[in-house]
């Protein structure tokens, strides 16, 4: 067995443990665990049209998760994907507002540029603080998430407010139909092509460029990379910027595609799920693509459960959280189990 296979197997074992914990919680709360898992699987993959819905959630998650993977690879614990995602959406919305009336072939690329820049800038300051003064990026990016959330509430209730909106939740004016890149179902050729481009670019970056190799090495052993003459500083900052730009891209897609407008606190778990995807995929780009489909399925099941099965969507939150609890675990016991497999193989 290769090391890669062992690590995939280990990940799977901990996911099974996490699901078992979920089962216990469901049962304890008075639901049938089997029924719950059955409904989740049905909502995610086995009802008619489920795959389209799952992909709709999977593609933006994949883009953010690919970025998270880059910064984790380089050894920076950037947990600010949520904030970078919001800033991307906010900057794209401002650009759309500013260029409103211009032809779509001008507005759409400009919004994408603005969104990616916004996301990258929201990753830039934690990156600079980290590399200049050693300020812990876990704290700065976490605080950045809250700041971005407040900024989103502020712009949707202030500068971008839709005056015709009802008082319930402030949201921005809807994006003109000509500028939308998908309908509200959220799966369009444009989005698929963008995700595919990101996948190819990230795979090449990680596996076929000096940057990717050095960044991965820097994550494991910065001293060695420094001795080999690479600039850890530049590698680190680039990885922050790339992860921010991709989260911003995902924010732009959610704004210009399925959502079509900004609302205060929209998609509040996007960043956390993306971090989870990157970790479950063990930071590999190909793995991230597959794992995204799984978590995209869970995200679409969260909408399906309360409406079609009469079950609370909190079940999905619990499944995600339990996987988070266990996914970085390493256990001597599990490794011994795997070692037994290795001897017999």
């Amino acid at each position: 067995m290769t090391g890669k296979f062992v690590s995939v197997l280990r990940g799977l074992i901990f996911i099974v443990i996490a699901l078992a914990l979920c089962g216990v919680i469901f049962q304890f709360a008075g639901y049938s665990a089997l029924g719950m898992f059955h409904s989740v699987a049905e909502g995610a993959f086995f009802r008619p049209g489920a795959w389209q819905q799952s992909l709709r959630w999977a593609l933006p998650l994949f883009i953010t998760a690919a970025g998270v993977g880059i910064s984790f690879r380089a050894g920076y614990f950037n947990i600010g994907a949520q904030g970078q995602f919001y800033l991307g959406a906010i900057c794209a919305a401002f650009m759309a507002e500013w260029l409103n009336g211009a032809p779509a072939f001008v507005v759409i690329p400009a919004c994408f540029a603005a969104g990616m820049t916004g996301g990258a800038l929201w990753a830039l300051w934690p990156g600079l603080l980290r590399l200049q003064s050693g300020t812990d990026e876990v704290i700065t990016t976490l605080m950045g998430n809250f700041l971005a959330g407040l900024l989103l509430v502020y712009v949707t209730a202030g500068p971008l407010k839709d005056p015709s909106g009802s008082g319930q939740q402030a949201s921005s004016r809807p994006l003109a139909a000509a500028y939308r890149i998908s309908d509200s179902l959220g799966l369009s050729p444009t989005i698929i092509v963008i995700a595919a481009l990101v996948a190819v670019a990230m795979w090449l970056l990680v596996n076929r460029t000096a940057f990717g190799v050095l960044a991965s090495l820097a994550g494991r052993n910065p001293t060695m990379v420094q001795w080999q003459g690479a600039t850890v500083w530049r590698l680190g900052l680039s990885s922050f910027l790339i992860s921010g730009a991709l989260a911003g891209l995902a924010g732009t897609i959610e704004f210009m595609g399925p959502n079509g407008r900004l609302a205060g606190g929209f998609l509040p778990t996007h960043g956390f799920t993306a971090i989870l995807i990157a970790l479950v995929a063990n930071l590999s780009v190909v793995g991230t693509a597959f794992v995204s489909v799984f978590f995209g399925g869970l995200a679409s099941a969260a909408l399906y459960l309360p409406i079609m099965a009469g079950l609370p969507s909190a079940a999905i939150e619990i499944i995600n959280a339990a996987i988070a609890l266990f996914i970085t675990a390493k256990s001597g016991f599990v490794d011994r189990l795997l070692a037994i497999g290795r001897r017999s193989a």
Partner: protein
Amino acid sequence: MNDIIVAILRSGTPLIYVTMAGVVAQRAGIWNLGLEGLMIIGACTAIVGIVLTGSFALAMLIAIILCVLASVLLWFVIEKLKANPIIAGLGLTGLGLGGTSLAVQAIFGSQAAVTAPFGVPKLGPAFGPFGVLSIFVLAMPFAVFAMWVLLRRTRFGLRLAASGEHPFAARSVGANPSRMRLAALIIGGVLCAIGGAELAAGSLQIYAQNMTAGRGFMAFAAVIFGAAHPIGSAFAALFFSVVGALGIRAQLLFGDAVPHDLLLALPYIATVFGVWLSGKLRGGRKAATGFAELRDY
């Protein structure tokens, strides 16, 4: 003036209890990002417990037991399964938020807010305008002081700090760092149960889904801002509450002239600034932490 102080104490007390939970974990070397989850478990259990059992003491007991169990689960995953504390903590937070929503739906058949007939016992008319506050508010300064004594003046506290800063040194004097962390997280669980109960049952006597609204993370920010010193962190938490209370007041007085959301951002900006400054003052760059342990090569 009194009503401002009452408002600050009401919003500050839950935050300070949870901050103390973060402080004791931080001292033991665990960045506890599960505070938010523990706090919502405390808040939910306190109200639901009062409704179901009709007894405040019983509800509090259940809240403490559940928070301690959740903390032990976090300890097990971090210490025994060597999971990354930050991801595991965020996982516990999600488990708390999701689990409480699920439990409320299961027990009451809807996700609507739950109202309890009574809450935490109040101080009473003997305290004049402060009589509306709960007994947990009065106990709070003593809890902070007790935490300071525990962490800075007892053998246990010193061993706890050693376990966090230099586990090898702790082991050399016969302390078991892993067990010290368990103790720290259990103490934290009790404090989060009290903080959550005060939030839900201290004045409003109502539990609503996700009512902690990021207070657990704000407590974590207070821990960092106060450099994990019990009194420093308590004042940081108090500062955050003052900013929040002033933000609401400023909005009442000046309307939209002072953007409320931007005032609410002050604590987070202050935390970033504080962390940056403390790094500058200590000098030197943080050695790049390879998060190599996240991956298997």
